[in-house]
């Protein structure tokens, strides 16, 4: 009874959301104080871990392996924590924490540090745990679940991994397999046998997590009837969170109808992942065996009347799931998965038809798709035939629709939305850019018609000479053919995308501005293709730039130390020290050069700097998008309004991303310098000896300055030097970059 009441309450709450309001989902952000583990140096955590290990009475080889695990896991996990993808103190993570608490109240975990549960901003359907006591649940997974009990089971599974230290144990097992001493039986084992043994070990751990996780659930008041659906979630994890026919009319209008040839008559039926696949080479047991194992246990435990699908809150589960689902279009958009962004946004529009944010998301996805489609280097990733379910329609549409028609599709949608929301700055930028793409595709607007298409007349039969009606002439037939092409769904259907708009003053303004931009762009491109232009380009590169910018912000200066002589090339501790050193060099060089800089770095934040933490996250996401869009003409970010606000906050439009990667290379055949010098010219022996013994380094230094409002970038440096990253070297290049930015 209680379940029914809660269920109905949940439905009523969802239904009660005001449908008439101009709602708009804002991206989930971290709030409150930054947890200590996000801003504590990884070196400190590693030191604590190896102290713990040294107290244990383990054999020396195992102690070394544990220390290696502590090194890799601490640094890699801390990179994840600082990436901006992990949320803290937000509604979702807070709720996850409370669900985890229900699982540990009656049966506490034997952990040395408190358990922490975080939401991870990822569309992947996944959850994972670390031996440090962290559990991460992706928004992709939350979007797919039906109720809190299923979430609790997943958390219980992950808690088992934490408690039993599965990650460490698996690492030790794999390490032992890898480093077997040849005298053992394993020494004669092939690499495939080692893989099988590793996979078998991992599957044992997964089965243990399933079993103990289920025991933990059975010790609570959670209802278990719906738990087997968790394996359905995994089986169909590649699908969106719902499967509803896509409403093509949302992309069309009265006179603009996309031809039927671009739509599938029948989508591919849903099969999902095979649940009984051979799992010998997999780390997880197949879903069938897991499901059966669960059902065997559940058969002995019936749900009593006191059991419920919700122990924390049905309302909050629905709210959290809604938040997760609403985040997905943004995540897909950021990852340039345009079809998925549009489909998931359209699913959400069923419940929230007035959500402007969702419509804007669709607009941006269509826009980005048009941009990519019209880039000469673009290749569609994947095959629409592999997509199952209703979302296949969009993949098919995008694959079949030619590049220039994709621009019309995008602008048709964006233009209507922009006219309804003329004050939205992001839509304005997207509209301008789409007009520019339209101008590049069509010299003039003559290709489009302002009038509604005429209805095509049926061709008259050829007249018999005895009948009085005249036959159609060749020109009549041509006119009929053209009318048919221009008709909705015809070959020139796109020419009626802007019926009634072409003479609109605003439309004309956008078009004229786009023509000018196109002409300027063509002129510039032509110039830099001439010998004179190429010489100037080369000269600018060698002489440097003069940008006249007095103030910039520097985002997360990056430093990485690699040593290819070692098994693990990434030198984590030296990397962290190098990052600190790089920051101090930047501060020093800023002062010398006179360029005003604001350093935005997660490594320098204090617990109250959550707003800065979020700023850095959005800036890095923007930068990642610009990196993917590098070859496209200037493209705004998917959160451009937020970026513009950040620019205003820091008093500059110019943001710099800079980094150094230092590589210590293997010496290779450098010793050959010595015999070569002795053979060819003995006096060079001292030089040859120096070259033979001198350590070999390579340093990559990049410095990229962006105007974050326009997306215009200046790659000041992107160079590789056969040199060690000494302070002098780094400072010299930083100074060089800063002077180029500052001088007029």
């Amino acid at each position, binding site marked *: 009874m209680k379940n029914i009441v809660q269920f109905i309450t949940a439905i009523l709450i969802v239904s009660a959301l005001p449908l008439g309001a101009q709602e708009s989902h804002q991206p989930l952000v971290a709030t409150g104080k930054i947890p200590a583990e996000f801003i504590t140096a990884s070196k400190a955590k590693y030191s604590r871990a190896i102290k713990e290990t040294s107290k244990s009475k383990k054999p020396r080889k195992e102690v070394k392996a544990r220390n290696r695990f502590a090194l890799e896991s601490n640094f890699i996990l801390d990179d994840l924590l600082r990436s901006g993808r992990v949320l803290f103190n937000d509604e979702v993570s807070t709720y996850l924490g409370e669900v985890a608490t229900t699982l540990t109240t009656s049966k506490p975990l034997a952990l040395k540090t408190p358990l922490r549960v975080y939401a991870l901003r990822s569309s992947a359907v996944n959850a994972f745990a670390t031996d440090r006591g962290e559990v991460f649940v992706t928004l992709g997974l939350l979007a797919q679940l039906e109720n809190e009990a299923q979430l609790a089971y997943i958390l219980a599974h992950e808690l088992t991994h934490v408690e039993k230290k599965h990650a460490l144990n698996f690492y030790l097992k794999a390490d032992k397999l890898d480093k077997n001493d040849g005298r053992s039986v394993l020494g004669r084992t092939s690499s495939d046998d080692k893989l099988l043994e590793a996979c078998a070990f991992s599957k044992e751990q997964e089965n243990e997590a399933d079993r103990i996780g289920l025991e933990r659930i059975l010790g609570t008041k959670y209802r278990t009837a719906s738990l087997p659906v968790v394996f359905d979630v995994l089986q169909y994890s590649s699908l969106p969170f719902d499967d509803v026919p896509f409403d093509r009319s949302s992309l069309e209008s009265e006179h603009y109808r996309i031809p039927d040839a671009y739509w599938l008559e029948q989508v591919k039926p849903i099969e999902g992942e095979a649940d009984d696949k051979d799992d010998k080479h997999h780390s997880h047991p197949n879903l069938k065996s897991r499901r059966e194992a669960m059902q065997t246990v559940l058969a002995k435990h019936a749900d009593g009347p006191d059991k419920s699908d919700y122990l924390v809150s049905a309302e909050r589960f629905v709210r959290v799931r809604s938040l997760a689902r609403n985040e997905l279009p943004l995540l897909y958009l950021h990852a340039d998965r345009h079809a998925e962004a549009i489909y998931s946004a359209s699913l959400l529009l069923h419940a929230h038809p007035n959500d402007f944010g969702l419509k804007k998301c669709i607009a941006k996805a269509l826009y980005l798709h048009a941009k990519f489609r019209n880039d000469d280097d673009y290749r569609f990733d994947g095959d629409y035939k592999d997509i199952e379910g209703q979302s296949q329609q969009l993949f098919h549409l995008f694959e079949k629709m030619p590049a220039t028609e994709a621009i019309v599709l995008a602008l048709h949608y964006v233009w209507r939305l922009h006219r309804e929301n003329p004050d939205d700055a992001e839509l304005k930028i997207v509209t301008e850019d789409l007009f520019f793409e339209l101008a590049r595709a069509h010299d003039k607007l003559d290709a489009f018609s302002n009038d509604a298409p005429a209805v095509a007349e049926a061709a008259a039969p050829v007249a018999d000479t005895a009948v009085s009606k005249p036959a159609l002439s060749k020109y009549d037939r041509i006119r009929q053919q053209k009318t048919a092409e221009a008709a909705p769904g015809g070959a020139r259907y796109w020419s009626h995308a802007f019926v009634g708009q072409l003479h609109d003053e605003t439309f004309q303004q956008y078009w004229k501005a786009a023509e000018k931009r196109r002409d300027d762009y063509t002129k510039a491109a032509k110039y830099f293709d001439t010998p004179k232009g190429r010489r100037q380009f080369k000269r600018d*590169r*060698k002489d*440097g730039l003069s940008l006249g910018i007095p103030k910039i912000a520097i985002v997360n200066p990056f430093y990485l130390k690699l040593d290819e002589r070692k098994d693990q090339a990434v030198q984590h501790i030296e990397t962290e020290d190098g990052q600190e050193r790089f920051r101090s060099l930047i501060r020093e060089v800023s002062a010398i050069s006179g360029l005003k800089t604001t350093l935005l770095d997660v490594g320098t934040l204090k617990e109250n700097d959550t707003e800065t933490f979020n700023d850095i996250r959005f800036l890095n996401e923007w930068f990642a998008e610009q990196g993917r869009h590098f070859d496209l003409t200037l493209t705004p970010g998917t959160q451009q309004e937020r970026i513009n606000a950040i620019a205003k906050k820091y008093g500059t439009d110019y943001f710099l991303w800079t980094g150094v990667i230092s590589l210590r290379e293997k010496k290779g055949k450098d010793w050959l310098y010595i015999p070569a010098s002795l053979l060819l010219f003995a006096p060079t022996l001292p030089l040859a000896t120096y070259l033979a013994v001198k350590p070999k380094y390579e340093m990559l230094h990049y410095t990229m300055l962006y105007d974050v409002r326009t997306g215009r970038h200046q790659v000041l440096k992107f*160079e590789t030097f056969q040199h060690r990253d000494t302070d*002098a*070297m780094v400072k010299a290049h930083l*100074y*060089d970059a800063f002077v180029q930015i500052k*001088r007029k």
Partner: protein
Amino acid sequence: MKHQTFLWALLLGMASGLSAQAPGYLGKRFFVKPEFSSMFALSNPTADYVGSADPFALNVRYGLQLGYALSRRSALTVEASYMKTGMVMSAYTPSIQNNSSSDVHDLLYSLGGPEIGISLQTYNPLRGSIAPMGFFTAWRLRMAFLNGIVQEDRITYANGDASAGTRPLDINPSYNQLTLGVELGQNIVVADRLVLSISAEANIPPFNLSSDNSNYDSGDGQSVFDYVAADRMRWHSWFMVKIGAGYLF
């Protein structure tokens, strides 16, 4: 002296128009650097006349370089140096006792003197070098003003009789030479002020300004001196390894 005044004027004149350029290392464009060049004598005589018996005998040059980073890509330097080497030659003087025969003088000269030079170093920023730091290629003109001092004169008398002495040698031991050099090296900046350098230099002597040695006549002491001096300079400086340690400001 006139050369040097001109070069300094040139440098100062250039300095005023260069504010638009990216200055040198952290804004420090000037550097002063003492240098030491050396190479094995390869069985040629050295200033100490260790001679061919010692395979590790070195030819040396001591220098002082003043440089100025003109831009990210180039630096102009002026140099003053001092080189000294040994030279062995044979000359003839008519015998005092018998005009028709000659005394043979086997001479060991110490040949040395000041040099001045000017060079243009080019740096490739695309390879990480920014003047005056990093790998560079330099083209140099160096003018040597050398003087030979006889260290030893072993005379073989025409009649084997040394009692009458020998006639003086009619040799003007001055020698001037202009060389064109190319240098490949690296300047390493330490602690933002010190600059250490290592380079290899090759020199070609295109001109011999003090005399015309195209008519080399083994009977003419002066002609022999000029010829051997040119040859000695060629072998002294044709390839040297140079190290330096200086200061940036």
